[in-house]
């Protein structure tokens, strides 16, 4: 590599004039960032999001280290970009790895505390279900509340409710008549019972949140719990579930069983009950992927096609782009500017629109492409329906989408191939084809290798194209796990994450994502090493 000659980072020389001002700006900026981060900390701590606290601390460390430490020269240039990469690329990778070690899936999305709280809120039900009651609310001068509930048979109960958390009361209730009820407006509902005055329905909304936590024990009948401001339901008793932190079990009073916590759910009589919580399961998901036979077949099939797709995409776009760029490498050629402007059009149109347009064009029944073929006497091609043609379609569209980029790159790189080299070869008697093969192409490859590797990486994980063009289809007939002929690993994973078992399997999907990431990274790292060797042979273009 020819680079600026290796040079140690220099300490600021005394002749540098803007030092003071520069330093002020720098300190000011650092102080500002520190202040912003410090502002975020309390909220994050109160949210108990420790990972983010750690990230914030790391960012602060990077900023302060880079701009305050006198010897940190390169870091000053790298830090701004690195922060964004750290937060929005690296952290997502780390977090996805974490998710892949848990049991995140439908049924396990809450924290354990939340799950316990939900269970403990449930009431014992009588076998025939809850009975709907009409509710009236009363209040005495001291602010104490009382409930008057009427069941569908007109049976009335009146009493002072207790808090949900308090022990049930067994004291017999007094009837309104015993307390002395008066119905001044004659609507059949007492306006005054003993010391208690009726609160009109619309005014109960102000105390609605209190009502929610109140229960009226009706000895020998059940417990009335408030449903709306004017209705309640009669249930068999108070809490159905009680959690015991010491043994980490949940007691179900309805069925009289103790349910131990295991693997993210409470297990009652050997059956996990919903909802469960998020828990750490180690490498279970990975083990599942590597040992599940039904998964392995499709996974391997998709992997092979994925490699072929990515490699062919790069090859095709590069070949078409190079062929065109090479064709326009002659200054005498008229209309070069027009050619170039028109050829980049596929690149200019927003990709996802083009893909949808292509999907319409390739429609086997009403698509213009088949109409065109028909007019040449060729019968309908099942573009998106047949395994082979669907793959062809995917590559065709991807080539269309990607060749202008390669065309631009090759146009630039071709100009950079020193004319003297070509001339020298020609003088040695090499023909145009030979010059191209032995001089131009190797130099071009060295210069564009990082871009080609990048393009491979992008296409390996190309989600939008198969998602919008074929949706992975056509399906593989008779597959035990849904898989399509044009599925890439990434779309396959996606289907796996959302349509296997019950609901969504996000942890499993995350595990596949991590596996894919390491595969692509390995392929890329290998390619970079290889191109470095090429570079050593041919030098940097």
């Amino acid at each position, binding site marked *: 590599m020819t680079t600026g000659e290796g040079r140690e980072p220099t300490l600021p020389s005394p002749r540098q004039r803007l030092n003071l001002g520069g330093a002020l700006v720098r300190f000011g900026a650092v102080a500002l960032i520190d202040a912003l981060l410090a502002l975020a900390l309390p909220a994050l701590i109160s949210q108990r999001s420790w990972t983010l606290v750690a990230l914030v601390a790391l960012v602060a460390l990077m900023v302060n280290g880079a701009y305050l430490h006198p010897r940190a020269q390169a870091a000053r240039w790298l830090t701004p970009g690195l922060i964004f990469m750290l937060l929005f690329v690296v952290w997502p990778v780390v977090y996805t790895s974490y998710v892949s070690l848990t049991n995140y899936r439908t049924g396990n999305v809450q924290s354990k505390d939340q799950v316990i709280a939900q269970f403990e809120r449930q009431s014992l039900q009588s076998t025939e279900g809850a009975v709907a009651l009409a509710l009236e609310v009363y209040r005495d001068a001291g602010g104490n509340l009382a409930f008057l509930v009427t069941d569908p048979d007109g049976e009335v109960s009146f009493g002072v409710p207790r808090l949900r958390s308090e022990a049930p009361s067994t004291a017999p209730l007094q009837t309104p008549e015993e307390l002395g009820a008066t119905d001044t407006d004659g609507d059949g509902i007492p306006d005054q019972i003993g010391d208690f005055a009726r609160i009109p329905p619309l005014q109960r909304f102000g105390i609605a949140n209190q009502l929610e936590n109140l229960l009226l024990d009706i000895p020998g009948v059940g417990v009335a719990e408030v449903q709306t401001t004017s209705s309640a339901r009669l249930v068999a008793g108070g809490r159905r579930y009680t959690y015991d932190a010491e043994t980490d079990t949940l007691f179900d009073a309805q069925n009289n069983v103790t349910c131990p916590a295991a693997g993210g759910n409470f297990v009652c009589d050997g059956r996990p009950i919903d909802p469960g919580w998020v828990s750490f399961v180690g490498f279970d998901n990975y083990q599942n992927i590597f040992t599940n036979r039904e998964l392995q077949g499709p996974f391997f099939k998709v992997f092979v096609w994925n490699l072929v797709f990515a490699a062919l995409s790069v090859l095709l776009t590069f070949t078409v782009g190079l062929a065109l760029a090479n064709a326009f490498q002659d200054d005498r050629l008229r209309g070069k500017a027009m050619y170039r402007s028109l050829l980049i059009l596929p690149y200019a149109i927003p990709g996802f629109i083009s893909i949808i347009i292509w999907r319409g064009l390739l429609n086997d029944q009403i698509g213009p492409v088949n109409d065109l073929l028909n007019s040449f006497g060729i019968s309908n091609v099942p573009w998106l329906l047949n395994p082979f043609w669907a793959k062809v379609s995917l590559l065709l569209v991807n080539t269309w989408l990607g060749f202008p980029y390669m065309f631009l790159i090759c146009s630039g790189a071709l100009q950079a191939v020193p004319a003297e080299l070509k001339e020298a070869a020609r003088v040695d008697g090499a023909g145009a084809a030979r010059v191209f093969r032995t001089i131009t192409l190797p130099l071009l490859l060295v210069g564009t290798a990082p871009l080609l590797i990048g393009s491979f990486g992008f296409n390996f994980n190309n989600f939008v194209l198969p998602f919008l063009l074929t949706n992975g289809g056509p399906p593989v007939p008779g597959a035990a796990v849904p898989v*399509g002929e044009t599925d890439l690993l990434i779309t396959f994973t996606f289907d796996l994450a959302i*349509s296997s078992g019950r*609901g969504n399997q996000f942890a499993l999907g995350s595990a596949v994502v991590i596996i894919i990431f390491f595969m692509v990274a390995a392929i890329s790292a290998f390619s970079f090493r290889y191109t470095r060797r090429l570079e050593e042979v041919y030098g940097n273009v």
Partner: protein
Amino acid sequence: MKQRSVALLAVLVLVLAACGGGGAGDTTVTADTGATTTAAPVTTAEAATTTAASADVNLLVWADEARTPVVEEVAAAFTEATGVTVTVETKEFGDIRDQMVTAGPAGEGADIFIGAHDWVGELAANGVAEPIDLGAKSGEFEQVAIDAFTYQGSLYAVPYATEAIAFYYNTDLVPEAPATFEELAGICAGLDGIENCVGVPGGGDAPDAYHNYPFVSALGGYIFGYDPASGYDTTDVGLDSEGAIAGITFLEEQIAAGVIGSTNYDTAKALFLDGLQPFWMTGPWEVGNLEGQTEINWAVAKIPTIGGNAPAPFVGAQGFFLSAFSENMVVAQSFLLDYIATAETQQALYDADPRNPAYTSVLEGLADNPVAATFAASAADGNPMPNVPEMGAVWTPLGEQIQLVRNGELAATEAMTAAATAVRGAVGS
């Protein structure tokens, strides 16, 4: 519905994010938080005269675009009567589930949200939706709607609409719809200049289990065994039952006879609208599009019978859910029972977006509207889509295997056997 479209990505994000936020403070209403008790002097209500609600009592409702205006009107009435502030936010219908699953546990979700009945299993398993007790009001709704929202014995929403597919036909091409599928072959053969005869989505390049379910059900096939008392039995997969295979074999014969082509949703729609396809099997959501065009004359009929049986389409229901994370349960339930489950609101919801009403008295008022009446009759014949979370493992394999049959790539028996095996494998694991 057939698949979860683009919003799928969002699902992934959202649900996972929920867990990540799990450490966040408990926003759940726990039993012990009622600090003010009967013993404490209550002054708010005494001071209040007309509006009694304190400032911290407010409701957040998530609704889709079509229903937002109605909910806003109801909310205004509720606020005026009770003093409780109700905020209505518009969301994409499909996003609501995913966002509730995420935002709910983090304490940022709505108190009340609109949703489809086939979300119930997932929402309940995640502990996001709270059961609702309609009490005597449950009798005011169509039974199929109540059943649709019932999961493990509890009702999870106040329904407002049901929907099922039926049979659109082009009256310029065919003056009268056939009563039986067997008549169709003759009708199709007698028509010139058409591209396709019966447009059923789910062929071509897009799987669609939903639109093909009538063929599964027509001769006795089913997805999961169902018992009214205990609900769905996910260990009993009926996709390779005799009836299901017979139904899809019938479908296969119709394809071979040229009655049903390999259309996807878009193609079927485009061909019907352009008068190149006399029949189109799809739902009431296209009525608006058809009314807005002038190219063709159309009508709608029930799906023709197959072997003398009325094919049961899937019935979907929509309703208002109550969040398990609401901090104002009593107020939210008052809003649902006293303001949403009423004839006026249900009528207004129908007027805003004419879907088949779930509220019986509103439905009865539509007897003189032939299109609405036909869709209602079709829904009455239908089976609610199973609302168990295991349905997630059904849509893709079933849709894809039928797609292969539709495109002539696979025989019915093999397709249904494969679909059943895939579902059993996924549900069992």
